[in-house]
Structures are given as structure tokens and as C-alpha cells.
């Protein structure tokens, strides 16, 4: 078993901005230089309101991107969230200067795919959030943590599906990475009329697929990848209570030498090789 003692940072941070970017969707920026220096694409952090006990637990959010100062030093973190319940509706009311309790970076992050020439990133709904930083690092625009800048930029195609066009967030950010951005809307209000896996099936096969989104979409993507014989990594968004490996809430069935076992998504993931997931269990 790997060493799980990776250090994370727990800190109280000020909100710098919190603005709507799509229907029920906001971008929140907080100042946290130490975390911004070490976090990598595909990693996440826990966010909690410092006061009160309801909501009680922290909630996991993926790195959208780090914020650099004028010298290029990482000083802050952006995350993008969809309002779905108790914590996210409280978050949407925060103003600059309000404080958050955060701890991270957490989780394994995306594979670096150093030798892959064409990467397909497949996002379902709010599952798009981890892909901006990843696209930037694959494109060789930005290094994260202690990773060097990628020398050979990969060709990146982003397939982004939403229920309806007004939920599309960050499309301009994705385009600015130089990635080819393809949109699907289930109600036909933008781009391809249908699901994101249908959109993907209409295009050239990338050499590696990476997905994030609701579980049914990830299943469909894993099936497609298997049919295409294309390697595939998936970032899971299982509900979490601690984010650091101590509660055993976030488990998902993973193949083992002699069958399967539950693994903690927060420390063994959130990114898994699709071939390792034992979803039928």
C-alpha cells in the first residue's frame, strides 16, 4: 500500500470574489498561497463555513485553476460550483472578505500523460470543473505544484455536455487553452443535440480519455473507451464526509487480485483507471 501521509494544509482563508458564471453556477476565488503552490489538476480540497454546526461537514471541490500574481507566483485558488443543497446555497451568499475554512490539496490528481499526443477530456455538467487546469498543463501553458512545464503540448479535445445551454460555464476559459471545445446539450439548446458520449462517438478517437461527471455518464464513457480500446481515467465525485481518508464514507468498488474491495475515493482517487473500477458490484 502506498504511503498515505501526504501533507495537506488546513487554513482559514478570505473570499476574494464570488460571482455567477452560469445558471446556479458560481466561481469563488480565495487567497491561499501555500495551497496554490502545491495543488495539481484533478486534486481537490474541502471547504467549510467557519461558524456554526449546520452545515457541519466540509464539502469537496475540485481545483478549477490557480490564481497567479503579477510575478507569476500562485497566490489563490478558483473553484466553480453548482448550487445543489445546503452548503452550496450558503456559499452562493458569500461576499469578498468573508472567510472559509479549507483543507487540501487532497487526492491523487490526473495522470500526466507525458507521451500522449491527443487527449480527450469528457465533462458532464458540473464535472467540467477539474478540466481547465488539466487542459492548461496538457497544453504546456502552466505548470502546477512541482511539475515542470510540459515541453510537447498535447492536442486536447474537450467534450462538454450539459442539460441545457444556460448551464454552460467556462467555455471561453477552455477555448483559451487552445483545446478544441465541443458542446452537447440534452435539450438541443446548444451544439450537439444529445448526450456528451453521443457527441464524442461522432468524433475522432483520442489516444486517451479522461472523464468527470455523473455516474451514468461515466459508465457510458467507460463502455465507449473499452469498445474503442482507448485507455480511460475517470474522476469520481462520490459524496465525502472528511476528504482525508478517516471516515470510509466515499468508497467505490475497485478490482483486486482476488475479486473486488471498496477503496476510499478521497485518498486512492478521485481519479481511477476506468479498467480498475468494479461498478457492477
Amino acid at each position: 500500500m502506498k504511503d498515505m501521509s501526504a501533507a495537506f494544509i488546513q487554513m482559514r482563508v478570505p473570499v476574494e470574489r464570488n460571482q455567477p458564471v452560469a445558471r446556479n453556477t458560481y466561481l469563488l476565488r480565495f487567497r491561499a498561497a501555500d495551497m496554490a503552490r502545491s495543488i495539481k489538476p484533478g486534486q481537490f480540497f474541502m471547504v467549510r463555513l467557519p461558524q456554526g454546526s449546520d452545515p457541519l461537514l466540509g464539502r469537496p471541490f475540485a481545483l478549477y485553476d490557480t490564481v497567479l500574481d503579477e510575478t507569476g507566483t500562485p497566490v489563490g485558488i478558483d473553484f466553480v460550483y453548482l448550487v445543489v443543497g445546503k452548503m452550496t446555497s450558503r456559499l452562493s451568499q458569500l461576499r469578498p472578505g468573508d472567510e472559509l475554512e479549507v483543507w487540501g490539496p487532497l487526492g491523487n490528481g490526473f495522470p500526466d500523460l507525458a507521451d500522449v499526443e491527443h487527449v480527450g477530456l469528457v465533462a458532464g455538467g458540473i464535472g467540467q470543473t477539474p478540466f481547465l487546469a488539466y487542459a492548461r498543463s496538457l497544453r504546456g501553458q502552466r505548470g502546477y505544484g512541482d511539475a515542470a512545464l510540459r515541453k510537447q503540448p498535447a492536442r486536447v479535445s474537450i467534450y462538454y455536455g450539459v442539460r441545457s445551454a444556460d448551464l454552460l460555464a467556462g467555455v471561453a476559459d477552455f477555448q483559451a487553452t487552445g483545446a478544441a471545445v465541443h458542446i452537447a446539450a440534452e435539450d438541443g439548446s446548444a451544439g450537439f443535440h444529445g448526450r456528451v458520449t453521443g457527441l464524442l462517438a461522432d468524433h475522432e478517437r483520442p489516444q486517451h480519455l479522461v472523464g468527470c461527471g455523473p455516474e451514468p455518464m461515466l459508465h457510458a464513457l467507460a463502455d465507449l473507451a473499452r469498445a474503442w480500446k482507448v485507455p480511460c481515467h475517470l474522476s469520481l465525485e462520490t459524496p465525502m464526509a472528511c476528504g482525508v481518508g478517516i471516515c470510509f464514507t466515499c468508497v467505490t468498488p475497485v478490482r483486486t487480485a482476488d475479486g473486488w474491495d471498496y477503496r476510499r475515493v478521497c485518498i486512492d482517487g478521485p481519479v481511477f483507471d476506468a479498467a480498475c473500477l468494479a461498478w457492477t458490484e
Partner: protein
Amino acid sequence: MAELGVTLGRLRLRNPVLAASGTFGYARELAGVVDFSLVGGVIPKTVTCQPRLGNKPPRTVETASGMLNAIGLDNDGLEHFIAHHLPYLRGLPTAIIANIAGKSEAEFFEMGERIGREAGLAALELNLSCPNVSGGVDFAIDPAVTRRVVEGVRKVCPLPLIAKLTPNVTSIVPIAQAAADAGADAVSLVNTFIGLAIDWRKRRPILGNVTGGLSGPAIKPLALRMVWQVARQVRIPVIGIGGIASIDDVMEFLIAGATAVQVGTANFYDPTACTRLASELPAALAQLGASHMSDIIGTLDA
């Protein structure tokens, strides 16, 4: 500065703040952020004789100022614990208290004997109270069974013994008394309160296991009442557990009669809660002019 050491039967702790079983993983997960030398002790997740997959997700759900959990004792079994986790745990600069749950009385004895042969443990906590295991391992709803389990493990295991009790009983005092009579060094209470969360739109329970155990600030007054009742009436030391998250909570449990406390759910939303609470203790004692833990434990004026 105040002396923070406490004694629970044969167990001595440098300070009274322990990390509760099932809420601190196997400690290594927090090695990067927790200075174990500041914690009174660590109780790793409950170990069972054989490996257990645990319950189907969703395993937890947040409720008002608390959470319900039905993890189902997901663990890799006793031999794996001894081979893989214990070598790491015994190297930590704090008291390590293993926690075991048997499916039967015989299994408790077998596990107690096996783990009692291992070096590096400060004590053994018997989880007589996990509410999430179908087949019902709820030994601590019956004073007679509690007594037999504690007595039996006491015979085969040289470690100080702590009996962890369930609050899901009509009266907890006779059960704590049975543990004391059987030779337990201390009782720890409480484990979680059985509860239910429902998604009414789907007419379905939220947890995969249907019911789960309630923990967190929501249960603190209930736990405090039980600790107070037991501490007054049973002569062995009590370890208080239930919703502890602030130094005020710690002090309330100590005044109610707890000799030590365990921090559970708070670790999830504040991973350094245990060390923070231990470090805040001297100032709180000073507020009452106390120089030893014994100056405050069980001093409730009621």
C-alpha cells in the same frame, strides 16, 4: 502549568484527549497534519476477526448539526491489522488503544488473546456497541452478556480494558456496572444513537443500510447526561464521547465526570481538532484555578 495526566485503571495517559475509533482512520492518514505527541491517545478503527467489506454506499449523510453513518465495520481483519497497521501505530509517540468487535463471545476472546500478545498497545477497547452490523453485534444492550465478554477477555488478555457502550438502551448504568464488575479498567460512552434519514420524494431511506448511527454536536447533551449518570453511580473511570468539538465541550464532559474524552466526528470537519483541544486545556483549567485533572473531574455541582 497544570498537570494534564490522567489514570484510568491500569492505563495512564499524558492528557485526556483521545481520537475516537472509526473517526481517525489508522492514524497514518493524518500523519502530515497531526502532531501525535500532543494527543492523549489514538484509537484506530474497529478491527474484526475476518475482513469485512462494510455496507453499500451511501454510508453517511449529514443531518442537523450531526451525521448518520452506517459504515458497517469496513476493515481488512485482525491479521492484516497486526501485520500492516500495528507496526506503524506502535511507532507513534502516543498511546495506541486497539479497538475490536467480535461476532460472538468466543470471537471476542480469540481476538483479545491474539492482540494481547502484541507489543506496543496501551490498552484494548471492546466495541460492544456497533449499531451497523446486521446480525446484531450489540452486546452492550444486555448486562449479563457485557459481563461475560469483558470477564472472558480479561482472562486471556493482559492489556487494560475499556468497554465501549451503546446509548441505545433503556438504562446504561446497569450495563456500565456489569463492565465494572467484570474487571474493565474503564467504560467509554457513547457510541452512536440509531437514527433514520429519508428522501421523501423517492420514499426511500438515504443510507444504503436504511438506519445509521447519529453522531456530532447533535448528540452532545444526550451523551453528557449518560456520562454524568454513569460516573456518579459506577466506580470505574468513564471516557466521555459525543459531539465534542470545542474546549467548552471537553470541560463539560470532565466536569460531568469523565476522566478522559474521545473526539469523533469533529476530526472529519477539523482534522487537527484533537491537538487543538489538548493544547487549549491548560488555559481552561487555569480559569477554574485547577492544577490537576482531579481538581475538575466529576465536580458538577448538581
